[in-house]
């Protein structure tokens, strides 16, 4: 008896889902997936703000193709297992396009679900190579340059600008940090200008990294390249300074986050980090930042420009294609150049943006500034 009641409830649930997606025609459902809570929330929340700004502007001007845009926001905490739930929720709520995911690992977990539903997803931040190079996800696009474009400049900067001859490459064993570290290692070895003296992964969230710091010291490295996120980076760099190790610390755009400077404090000074190219001379970027300041009374955070650009190109594609049908939108994305805060961009057939790259930044007096 009880079982039958349960079955009935499940059946009713499905019934509701069907009706809710059938009603989707009235508005364009714009999904957002990313970490909005948890320790990486500072990567995800700026994208929500960016989408809100662009969408509010569009809606006020009459929407796209005469339809208003509705935001559906789901939190994945950058955790792959939560990302699959969040993605399924978005799909069943009728999302037609998605901004996100933010972290590579979570995005890889969510993509098959979006792919099966024929939903276009565009990330402002997921840099894992295979998302585009594998060809598995024809519905995936991104407005940030991938790792394979990030690792060589990091390695070149360390060898040429810092003049490092012995480099220790460390990573956090994750989907984002490890391929990046491998890319940097391969690039250094190929160039022959420096030697990789140590290549190792550390356990994220450990209480103490002094053993790996001692190992870096013994390796005689004059620079450390770290692939990973800011919590580990700040623990390792603080540990290095505590053990009086002066080697330069070069990291990626997972570290180029103001939380890193706040947490690492004075140890952050002089740390180099790659980040999306400097857009400060792009008026669209400064305007977007001003809009953010006006609406939220604060400066925009990480990946804001990329998310703003992604929202803009997605909405443009919907308008030009006249629908949210994947192939029609793809065609627009791949052929039409759009002016965005990250520059004038279109996409190659794999989904990477043409016209975006990385710059190197350094922490000086508590802020990231361009390194050259």
């Amino acid at each position, binding site marked *: 008896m009880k079982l039958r009641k349960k079955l009935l409830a499940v059946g009713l649930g499905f019934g509701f889902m069907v009706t809710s997606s059938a009603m989707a025609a009235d508005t364009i459902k714009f999904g957002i997936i990313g970490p909005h*809570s*948890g*320790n990486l*929330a*500072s990567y995800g929340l700026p994208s929500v703000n960016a989408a809100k700004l662009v969408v509010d502007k569009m809606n006020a001007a009459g929407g796209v193709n005469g339809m208003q845009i509705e935001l559906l926001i789901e939190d994945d905490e950058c955790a792959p297992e939560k990302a699959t739930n969040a993605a399924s929720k978005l799909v069943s709520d009728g999302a037609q396009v998605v901004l996100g995911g933010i972290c590579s690992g979570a995005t890889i977990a969510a993509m098959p679900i979006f792919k099966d539903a024929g939903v276009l997803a565009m990330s402002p931040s997921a840099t894992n190579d295979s998302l585009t190079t594998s060809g598995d996800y024809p519905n995936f696009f991104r407005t940030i340059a991938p790792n394979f474009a990030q690792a060589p400049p990091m390695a070149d900067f360390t060898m040429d600008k810092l003049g490092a001859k012995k480099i220790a490459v460390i990573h956090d*064993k994750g989907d984002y940090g490890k391929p990046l570290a491998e890319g940097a290692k391969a690039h250094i070895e190929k160039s022959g200008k420096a030697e990789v003296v140590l290549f*190792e*992964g*550390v*356990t994220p*969230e*450990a*209480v*103490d990294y*002094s*053993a*790996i*710091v*001692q*190992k870096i*010291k*013994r390796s005689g490295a004059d620079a450390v390249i770290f692939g990973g996120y*800011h*919590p580990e980076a*700040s*623990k390792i760099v*603080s540990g290095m300074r*505590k*053990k*009086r*190790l002066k080697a330069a610390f070069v990291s990626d755009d997972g570290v180029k986050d103001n*939380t890193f400077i*706040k*947490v*690492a*404090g004075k*140890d952050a000074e002089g740390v180099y980090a790659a980040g999306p190219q400097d857009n400060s001379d792009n008026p669209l970027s400064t305007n977007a930042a001003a809009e953010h300041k006006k609406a939220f009374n604060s400066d925009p955070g990480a990946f804001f420009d990329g998310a703003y650009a992604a929202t803009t190109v997605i909405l443009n594609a919907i308008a030009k294609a006249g629908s949210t049908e994947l192939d029609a939108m793809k065609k627009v994305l791949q052929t039409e150049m759009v002016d965005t805060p990250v520059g004038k961009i279109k996409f190659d057939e794999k989904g990477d943006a043409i016209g975006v790259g990385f710059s190197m930044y350094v922490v000086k007096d508590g802020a990231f500034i361009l390194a050259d």
Partner: protein
Amino acid sequence: MDYFIELLFSGLTRGSIYALIALGYTMVYGIIGLINFAHGEIYMIGAFTAFIVATVLTIFGFPLLAIVILAGLAAAIWASSYGYTIEKIAYRPLRHAPRLSPLISAIGMSIFLQNYVLLAQTSEFLPFPELIPDWEFVEPIAHIIGTTDIVILATTTIVMIILTLVIKYTRLGKAMRATAQDKTMAMLVGINVDRIISATFIIGSSLAAIGGLLIASHIGQINFYIGFLAGIKAFTAAVLGGIGSIPGAVLGSLVLGLTESFATGYVSSDYEDVFAFSLLVLILIFKPSGILGKAETQKV
């Protein structure tokens, strides 16, 4: 040789960090046979309390020593009130329930507290102030061991000695041992078992809070999630040393810390956990009750 000594002290520091948390696990298990999974969260709450108090006192311009002592006291009191309350609402009503029930209740408390701090405080990493300044005489050996490392090592040693003495020689300690051996019999000879169990939670929680202050000031950052992995590692250490035994918890923590440190130093940090947990499996195969644990029959 230098490298060996550096790794040795890395391992000892890491071990002492685990030990400060592992002591609370082992005390509670010793008395009521419960694995208090919320213990890692008590440590996290201690660190947050210390952070808040220290920040406020710094604004008022208190001297550093006063800040450390007051923040430590506040953290210990606040965290033990949490420990006391958790025991009262989540474990005491389940004391005569099957052993699995309080275990699930403990996991529930752990998740509850994490999310409570996430919502009530913040999801972001907060920079923990450096409460233990660099002493000058440490400078020549700073590449081997820092000031915080020395303080952590010393605190763990002192705490372990005091706890062992308390349990061996005081009335409270005797009552604790009696409760651990046989609750019904302890009641018959006039021991207030409920109060003894509360006292155990209070002592264990204060230790975790002190640990929270020291460890957070060692790694320089806190967030709502720090208790989870630290708690798992400390729990592992307590099992390794023989859960229920105080010197066992410290020994197990040091063994775990040293294994991780030497594995990183001489093999690769990629395999740090592989070595640590292989060691755990090996020790438990040959000595199921842990290094210093007493063989127990019938429990579980």
